[in-house]
Structure formats: C-alpha cells, structure tokens
C-alpha cells in the first residue's frame, strides 16, 4: 500500500540489504537511485514488450500514467507507518532492514514480471503480467496463490489512489488456468465507494482478449488515521 506513496517520490535512499544472486546496479554517478522494476528487462517476452509500448503511447496525452515499482520502502516511510499505525512492541529493527516487497523478491524473469498503468479519470489500473517459472502450481500453469497475489496487488493499487487502505475481502473466480510464462492483462477498477469502504472489480484476460482467465472482486478499507492497526 505504501508503494503508491513511494511511487510518487523519487527518493534517494540506502541500497537494499545484500542478498545472494545477481547484484543489481543501483548507483548512477554519485547519486544512489533505487531500481524501478516496472520497466522492460531481457526476460520480458515479445508480447509483454508490445503491450508495454502500446500503453506507453497512451501515456503521452497524460490520461494514463506508468507506475514505478521498487523493491523496498524508503526508511522514512517505514518509520512513519510504524509510528502511526503499529504498537511499538511490534517493531523489529533487524527484520525491517531485510524486508522487501513480496512481488519483487525474485530473480529476473523467474517470478512476477509486471508493470502497472493508472488512469485517474476512470480510476482504473491495468497490470501487464508475465508469470515466471517459480510461480508454478499445477505443472505448466500459474499457482492459484500467485494469481491471488497479482489480483491483490493490482486492486490494491487502485484502492491506494484513494488513500492508504488494507485488503478486507478478496473473492476470486478462476475460469481458465493461466499457462506459465504467458502474458495476461489484469484490469481493475473502483466499482463503488461507501465511506471508508472501497469496492474494486478485476478481470484477467489473455492479450488477444479472447480468453477470460479470472474474475475477482476486492474490498479495501481506508485506514482510520486515529486508530492503530495492532
């Protein structure tokens, strides 16, 4: 949820904690700039790149906006969230430094390869998603839980545009299995708001729009600034 706040800031922060595997180039001249994962990389298939280009074109007139995506929340935002919403006894300093966004905890091409675009007028978020080999469920297909995750993330982005919110309900209907390594389009839109409740509807379709893979609805609750979560 705080990712959206992060997305709006170009923050200079410390590089993420070291982890085994490829070392990401995070330094650009003297400034430390965190890597934006919502951009093409060598693991992206042709389908994904084509779609990306199509949507980047839509951004040209300002109606659509590409959302940047980082692996970690900057330290200041972490501290703010903890202070406002979390009981002090919950803060674990050591774990905070190791933590990273779930959907970006994979090596290139093996997990969630995705980029999100947002349309402010329509309150719609579109996520172009390519599932890698480490998201497997039934052999050859994307795990139901990975699909639930991408639905949660994309509907969450939609809700986040209205303010910090938490997922309350997630209802997912799986229609057709999604083959591993294929590209799908996740389309989410706010369908209704009732006070602090945000209702978001979501569909996952194939690139040619001929296959409806998944339909989902999510309910998000905007956090009460006066109440703690724990």
């Amino acid at each position, binding site marked *: *949820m*705080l990712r959206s706040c992060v997305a709006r800031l170009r923050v200079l922060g410390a590089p993420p904690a070291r*982890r*085994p595997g490829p070392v990401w180039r995070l330094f650009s001249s003297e400034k430390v700039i965190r890597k934006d994962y919502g951009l093409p990389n060598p693991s992206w298939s042709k389908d994904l790149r084509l779609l990306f280009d199509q949507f980047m074109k839509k951004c040209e007139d300002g109606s659509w906006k590409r959302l940047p995506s980082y692996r970690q*929340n900057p330290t200041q*935002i*972490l501290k703010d*969230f*903890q202070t406002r919403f*979390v009981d002090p006894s*919950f*803060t*674990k300093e050591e*774990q*905070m430094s*190791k*933590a*990273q*966004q*779930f*959907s970006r*905890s*994979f090596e290139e091409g*093996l*997990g969630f390869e995705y980029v999100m675009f947002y349309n402010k007028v329509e309150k719609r978020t579109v996520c172009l998603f390519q599932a890698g*080999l*480490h*998201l*497997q*469920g*039934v*052999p*050859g*297909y994307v*795990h*139901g*839980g*990975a699909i*639930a*995750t*991408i*639905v*949660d*993330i994309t509907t969450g982005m939609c809700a986040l545009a209205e303010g910090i919110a*938490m*997922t*309350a*309900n*997630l*209802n*997912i*209907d*799986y229609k057709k*299995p999604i*083959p*591993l390594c294929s590209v799908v389009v996740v389309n989410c839109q706010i369908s209704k708001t009732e006070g602090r409740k945000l209702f978001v509807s979501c569909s996952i379709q194939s690139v040619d729009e001929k296959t409806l893979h998944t339909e989902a609805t999510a309910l998000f609750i905007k956090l009460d600034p006066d109440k703690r*979560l*724990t």
Partner: protein
Amino acid sequence: MMRTGFQRVARLVHHKALPRNPHLLPKLHQASAFGSSTDSLVARFCPEKTDLKDYALPNASWCPDMLSLYQEFLEKTKSGRWIKLPSFKSNREHIQGLKLPSGLVTASDKQDWRIFTRCILLEGQGYEYVIFFHPSEKKSVCLFQPGPYLEGAPGFAHGGSLAAMMDETFSKTAYLAGEGLFTLSLNIRFKNLIPVGSLAVLDIQVEKIEDQKLHMSCIAQSRDKQTVYAKCSGVFLQMQLEEDPPQ
C-alpha cells in the same frame, strides 16, 4: 470400490513403492466415488525413500512456537491418524509417474520450475511451512511462518502471501481427499495482519464433495487462537491424473 483400493495398494507394495511393514500402511478408508482412494493417493504422495529434498522440515529460522507445535503434531503422526506431508521444490516432483490429462499438458523443455510457495529457498526469508493431513477426517493443519521477503505493510506479511498459503494448503488437501486439481474459487476475509517471523496456524476442513467439486473452509489464527488472521472458503475441481509410464 474398496477392492480397487486394496488392489492399488497391493500393486504399489508389489512394485516396492510401498513398504511391506503393515504398521506403516494407513488404515483403509472408504474410497471416494471419483477414483483413487485417499489412502492410495497418500501412499503415492509420501514416498518411503526419495532423493528429493523435503523442505517441510525444521531449520534454524523456525521460531520456538513453530518448532514446539511441529513436535506436537509429529507425536500425533505416530498413531497413523495424522500424516506429515513432504514438500518438494516442484509439483512435478510430487506427481512423479503421473501426468495431466492430454489437452492440459504443456510442452516445456525448461527445467527450473518451482512451486510458488517454495519460490524463495533462502532459509527463513520466504514461506516456512509444513502441512499435516488427517485422511479419515479429511482435514489439514498448516504451520506457516512468513519471512521478510513476503512483506506487504511494513513488518507484516503481504495479504497475497497468506492467500497463496491458503490456496496451497487447500490444493494438497483437495488432492489427497479427492483428486482435486485446479482452484475454482477463493473467498478470503482478512481480519488481522500477521507479523513477519511469527507463526500462523491454518486449519482446513473439507466440507463437502459433490458434482466433481471439493468445498473447503480455512481459518488462519495465532497459536493461542486469540487472534484470527483470516477466514477463507475454497472450491477445487476434481480431475484425475493419468499414469505416465517411464519412456
């Protein structure tokens, strides 16, 4: 139906896939109307000897709660009523000798598949979990400890990671209880956040099996049951795997 179940088990014993010691064979239960009995499914799923690495075993990252509850359940497996399920790196390893019905098999020359819930193999960083299954009552318990790589809100597990853990536990339960294969629907109500590094206990129950669908319910809560993290209902589609004779 019972005889088919017996025949299958007998065949497995004959082919040395199952040990001959009777006390290791689970008590035979009523076979499901669909195909293989739960017992033959379990027997095939839990190989006596295997070179495959089982990730559902304690390691240094497990918190004390998880370790002690694990020991409690391990004691219960001695009577044969509960079974600890192995957890391999990929579902392909779980269904060795079996394959999807033709039409669903995807040709792939790639080797590095990994089941989603074992995507992060660094100890303690991703999903730490173990599932215990109770064949006669068609229920499961999953001990789940989310690591820092599963973070959503700072210091807490991402809702998607809990959804995935529920889906995965449903999946293994549905498969063993009645050859459930594909998720048809998930309905999750999130109540409270799970702090990263703490233990969440998932209790799953098969509610009914009808029209080729398995209906299950799940509640995820703290060990002392004082905090409910989420409730979920799931429906899985039954689909029989086919024998895949070695080439």
